[in-house]
């Protein structure tokens, strides 16, 4: 029988993911692996994971990796890529990591136009630490540190990282995607592949923001979480290309 599908070589063959049901981290890991394989750079790739659930990937991937200190993934990637420009450096960060504690590192790596690929997983909540409010938590959405829901008077509003980075001149490519249905999933893969291709071509800073769900900390079933994502998250975080300098060339 002809083999028409094979698991990406990025993921260790004997590993079963420990991510919660309905979590999209494992899906994104698969997409990154497929993109790297198709581009032929899997074996010269280094993964820099952020703190939190993102870091669980280190147990599943076969590629070289480190866990950066909370929020510092873009700084770590800066040091690595400058030192070894022939290798591929991908950061993999959540919303608390990239947009809160690591905001400075993210902004400045983007502003320097570092030739790295940033995968930003935005589920609007802190996962591993247990459902605390994130910079991307929706207004009214409950969190363990905002028990009455996010109140703009007290907590401000969700931060839109693609749009914030779009204020800078240097970033090359910024796109927001999701994995909530097959169509969006395929687009996410195309975006990841493009962001890695940009690094191979030396184009500079590329970030793919992926809006995902966290059924566990949202307090929903996986299916309800998908609906919530579609009806609420994507209203706040509209999908699409925010910046693509290749269109200007």
């Amino acid at each position, binding site marked *: 029988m002809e083999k028409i599908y094979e698991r990406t070589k990025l993921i260790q063959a004997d590993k079963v993911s420990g991510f919660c049901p309905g979590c999209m981290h494992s899906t994104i890991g698969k997409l990154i692996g497929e993109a790297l394989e198709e581009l032929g750079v899997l074996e010269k790739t280094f993964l820099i994971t952020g703190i939190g659930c993102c870091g669980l990937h280190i147990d599943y991937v076969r*590629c070289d990796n480190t866990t950066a200190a909370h929020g510092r993934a873009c700084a770590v990637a800066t040091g690595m*890529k400058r030192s070894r420009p022939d290798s591929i450096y991908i950061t993999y960060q959540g919303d608390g990591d990239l947009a809160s504690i690591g905001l400075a590192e993210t902004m400045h790596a983007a502003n320097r136009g570092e030739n790295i690929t940033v995968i930003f997983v935005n589920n609007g909540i802190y996962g591993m630490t247990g459902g605390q409010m994130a910079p991307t938590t929706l207004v009214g959405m409950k969190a363990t540190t905002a028990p009455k829901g996010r109140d703009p008077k007290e907590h401000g509003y969700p931060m839109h990282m693609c749009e914030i980075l779009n204020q800078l001149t240097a970033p090359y490519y910024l796109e927001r995607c999701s994995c909530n249905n097959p169509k969006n999933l395929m687009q996410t893969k195309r975006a990841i592949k493009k962001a890695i291709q940009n690094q191979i071509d030396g184009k500079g800073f590329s970030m793919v923001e992926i809006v995902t769900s966290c059924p566990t900390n949202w307090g929903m079933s996986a299916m309800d979480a998908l609906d919530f994502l579609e009806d609420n998250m994507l209203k706040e975080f509209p999908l699409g290309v925010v910046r693509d300098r290749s269109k200007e060339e």
Partner: protein
Amino acid sequence: MARVLMKGTEAIAEAAVRSGLRFFAGYPITPQNEIPEYLARRLPEVGGHFVQGESEIASVNMVYGAGCAGERAMTSSASTGISLKSEGISYCAAARIPMVYVNVSRGGPGVGTIQPSQMDYLQATKASGNGGFRMRVFSPSTVQEAVDMTYKAFDYADQDRNPVLILSDGVVGTMMEPVELPPMRTDEELAAIRESKKAWAGIGHPFDVPRSWNQPGIWDTLKWEQQNKDNAALYESWVPEVETLDLEDAELVIAAYGISARIAKAAIKALRAEGYKVGMIRPKTVSPYPYAAYDEINYDTCKAVLDVEMAIPALHLWDVEKGVKDRCPIETCLRSGGIVIQKREIIAAAKKILG
């Protein structure tokens, strides 16, 4: 090799480049600004990289990245900036990533003063970040020593896969002295160093060899305990470096490191000329600390050990006490706040003890 007059900070930077430094990230803070300024000019000349980080924290994490990728990497700062770097230093120690950093220390605590001080002793030697790791910490008394220590710091960092600290101060950092610079490591030597790190360096590996896995932590508590045991064994293997002077007949032994030690040395010379029997213990590594040097003191003749340092409260004193082990009294001669201790103050303190 001809001697050249160089400022401490610039001499440290040049020694680092000659030792193979090819990545530096740092953030401005007085009195160490000449290190990043010098390297911003110098590193591109040798194919290296300089990045002015957006913060101390970002800078040290860039160095974590470069070190993880197998490059000889360094950052520098002063006192309050070093506190910010402690996050990345601890991560390097945890993930066993080699790196060198320099503290041109100033008056503390807090923002303190920008003038020279030795207030960071305990931070430098006992707890440079969370988690109980240790480092080799070199404390130069002269610009030449700063050069020599920096040059070999990179070798120790690679050998141990651990951070190494050059604990300098505002005097050694800002003064100029004649130095002889060590030879520039050749491209071949540097290529060999990179090759030696290839097995663990974060550069991407073919999947038929083990992956590089530079993790500053793991889920498995038993494995992590084992790593802590391995680290502890490494720390135990280090040999301290020390200079001792006239301990055999000493009626007073001065214990001092770094800038205080060179001033104390001049005081001892003056005291000896007047017939006072004064000896000296000068740790060159303050971690590991040369406790054994205190066993060489003749406690039958020695009336006291005088701890001389630019710190109030006394901090080096903690280690002096551990070395002396109650075998004689310990006195102190201290200045702080950015004031450089004077030779005559040390002489007066010594005479007070010796009568």
